[in-house]
């Protein structure tokens, strides 16, 4: 026979457990809008039953309820998907962002674009060809040329500024990764201490997951959680974070490796280019190894690619264009004679063959009469005509140059520039489409995660009612026990 007070004890446990469950519900409601919060669940279990021997056999008598554990509603598989999609989505977002900015820089199509400047440059020559003795037309040629060179300079400067921006972003991201690494390491320590004492630190785990989510925007992340073999009687985990592809350990339990930026190469216009490498050794990398990033994963990767490959190639195209303009115009210009009989005069400075340096020859800057229009006679516009016809092709050049230019530039300089712009358009379009696609995928995974881990207020309100009713019922039980005990106490007393 068990104790008379058994029922009171059972009710007390019930009250206690329901109260904790109510508190947990309250915690969930309070954090309904907290970023990275995971819904917590009170796992109530029946306590060990008492065994009653009765008539030669045993009966298990339920002894009530107790709070077993408080766990998070979390699915690590969805987490992994979420992080992998985040990396991809961030890559394309960063790429789209950079490329759109480049698109803004080149400002095509508009009335103030480089193609417009080029067209005006060619027509100025055609205008000059019909009135070579007209110093007004000469000035126009010089001014249009300055507009053209200024545009090229401006674009070139902006491309190299953009590269510089991206480089500083890379540096910022390196320190962000380091901060994440150290924070994850610290939380690992805290969680471990809690786990060793048998605790299940849900909110610390939420913070750690949030940090890893943040990290997955910068680089691709792989998390491995294994059981610590040193503890056999309780669940203690080793938490390891690898980044990049192949995986390189960033945090291994209580040890974080840091990254550092090394200024290794020279970029456009004397820009520094930061190369990312490991500062410390860890499982699978040594200090000084460079960080290997995967394919199209994370903003860091996007920034490095745009900085090193895309912008350099784009600048290269502008340089080639500038070189083409300088050499073709000069070839024709040098073949003619000025009004004063000078031959072999350059129109552009033949030493400056890049978009950032292209400039008029000193003699043209000094005197517009040094602009060659023909074979010397004041009304001869043959050379000017030849230069203006460069707008549509190479037929005015000597045969060897025609072949060489055709190989490099195609039909004409304008065409070459057109295809450069079109190529950029295709790149931006690809980034736009990829980003739109990744947005959808990420949304799907986020929704999946939310439906699993998110707080639904309706559900919590239902729980609230449920636990509250249970609590009331348990309290009623105590009252009932009290009544019962009073009955016992009053037994045998005569009034």
């Amino acid at each position, binding site marked *: 026979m068990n104790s008379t007070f058994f029922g009171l004890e059972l009710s007390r446990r019930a009250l206690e457990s329901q109260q904790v469950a109510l508190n947990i519900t309250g915690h969930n409601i309070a954090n309904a809008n907290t970023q990275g919060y995971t819904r917590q669940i009170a796992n109530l279990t029946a306590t060990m039953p008492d065994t009653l021997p009765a008539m030669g056999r045993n009966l298990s008598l339920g002894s009530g309820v107790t709070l077993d554990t408080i766990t998070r509603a979390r699915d690590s598989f969805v987490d992994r998907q979420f992080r992998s999609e985040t990396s991809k989505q961030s890559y394309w977002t960063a790429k789209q962002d950079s*490329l*759109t900015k480049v*698109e*803004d820089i*080149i400002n*095509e*199509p508009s009335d103030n674009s480089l*193609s*417009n400047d*080029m*067209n*005006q440059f*060619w*027509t100025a020559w*055609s*205008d000059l*060809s*019909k*009135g*070579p*003795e*007209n110093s007004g037309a000469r000035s126009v040629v010089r001014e249009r040329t300055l507009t053209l060179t200024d545009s090229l300079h401006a674009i070139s400067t902006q491309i190299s500024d953009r590269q510089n921006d991206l480089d500083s972003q890379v540096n910022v991201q390196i320190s962000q990764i380091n901060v994440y690494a150290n924070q994850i390491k610290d939380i690992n320590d805290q969680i471990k201490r809690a786990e060793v004492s048998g605790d299940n630190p849900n909110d610390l785990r939420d913070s750690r997951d949030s940090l890893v989510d943040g990290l997955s925007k910068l680089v691709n992340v792989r998390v491995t959680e294994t059981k610590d073999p040193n503890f056999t009687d309780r669940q203690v985990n080793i938490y390891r974070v690898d980044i990049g592809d192949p995986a390189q350990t960033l945090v291994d339990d209580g040890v974080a490796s840091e990254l550092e930026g090394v200024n290794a190469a020279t970029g456009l216009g004397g820009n520094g280019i930061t190369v990312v490498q490991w500062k410390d050794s860890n499982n699978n990398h040594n200090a000084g190894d460079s960080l290997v990033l995967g394919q199209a994963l994370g903003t860091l990767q996007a920034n490095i690619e745009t900085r090193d490959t895309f912008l350099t190639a784009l600048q290269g195209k502008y340089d080639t264009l500038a070189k083409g303009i300088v050499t073709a115009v000069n070839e024709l210009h040098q073949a003619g004679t000025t009004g004063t009989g000078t031959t072999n005069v350059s129109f552009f400075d033949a030493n400056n063959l890049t978009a950032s340096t292209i400039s008029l020859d000193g003699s043209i800057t000094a005197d517009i009469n040094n602009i060659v229009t*023909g*074979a010397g*006679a*004041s*009304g*001869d*516009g*043959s050379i000017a*005509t030849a230069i*203006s*016809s460069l*707008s*549509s*092709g190479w*037929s*005015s050049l000597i045969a060897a140059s025609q072949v060489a230019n055709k190989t490099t530039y195609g039909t004409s300089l*304008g*065409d070459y520039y*057109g*295809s450069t*712009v*079109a190529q*950029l*358009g*295709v790149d*931006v*379009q690809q980034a*736009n489409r990829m980003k739109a696609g990744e947005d959808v995928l990420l*949304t799907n995974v*986020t*929704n999946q995660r*939310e*439906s699993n881990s*998110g707080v639904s*207020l*309706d559900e919590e*309100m*239902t729980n609230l009612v449920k636990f509250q009713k249970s609590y009331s019922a348990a309290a009623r039980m105590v009252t009932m026990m009290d009544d019962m005990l009073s009955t016992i106490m009053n037994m045998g007393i005569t009034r």
Partner: protein
Amino acid sequence: MLSQNLLRNLESAQGRMDQLQNQLSSGHRINRPSDDPVGIQNAMRLKSNISSVEQWKSNANEALDYMNTADSTLGDMTSMLQRVRELTVQGANGTLATVDKGAIADEVDQISNQLKMMANTQVGSKYIFSGTATDKELIPLDGSVSQANGMPVNFEVGNNLSIDVSVSGQNLFGNSTSGVLATLNNLSADLRSGNSVGVNSALGNIDANIDNVVTLRAGLGARTNRMTALQAQLDYTSGNLQDNLSSIQDADMATSITDFTNAQNVYKAALSVGAKIIQPSLVDFMR
């Protein structure tokens, strides 16, 4: 989750409206290279063509000015030489008094002077009969040696197409033995000296000179016709290219406005549905 989806849908509806708004307010379908990479390349090529064609049109207009001036000068020359021919016939009359012959010689001299003026006709600051040496007179009034040349003055009026707009002054006025001015000088001298044989033989030279002017004028006329035809053709080409450009880069207003209204309706619907979704939860229904 609902509210996140709602936000995302609202954003995308807004994004569509923004894009259409851009198209409508700029009138262009292509506002950045990524809107249509192939289209923009074509548009840039067309723009470049249009700017060339416009320039050729302006060149052709100026060329026609130039040619018309040359043509009317040649016309004047012909009529003057006709007058000289009349005078020559008159002067060949043996019964004419010396004084009258002198008067005829005076008129011939005047015409000769007038022709020299014509040789130095200018359009703007250009001497049109001096070849490419447009800053030099064909027949310097100070009597110095002519620095003019017989090179063609070419105007660019098409892709690799240049047309000579000038008449060579050297061909027109000829050399110092059989040229127009030499003929007139000899004629004048013969008239004054009473050399009737010389006067008679001048008639043949004048006919040859008139023939020469008429031939050159016919050549110029043919080129003027060609230039006029080219000008009309360039006008047509320019219109064509503008049409092409417009079909590539301009927004179709009717479609864009319809799309915009559509997008606006979607946005409004999303907003009103959103207002209904966000509000209720079990909390509202519990006492």
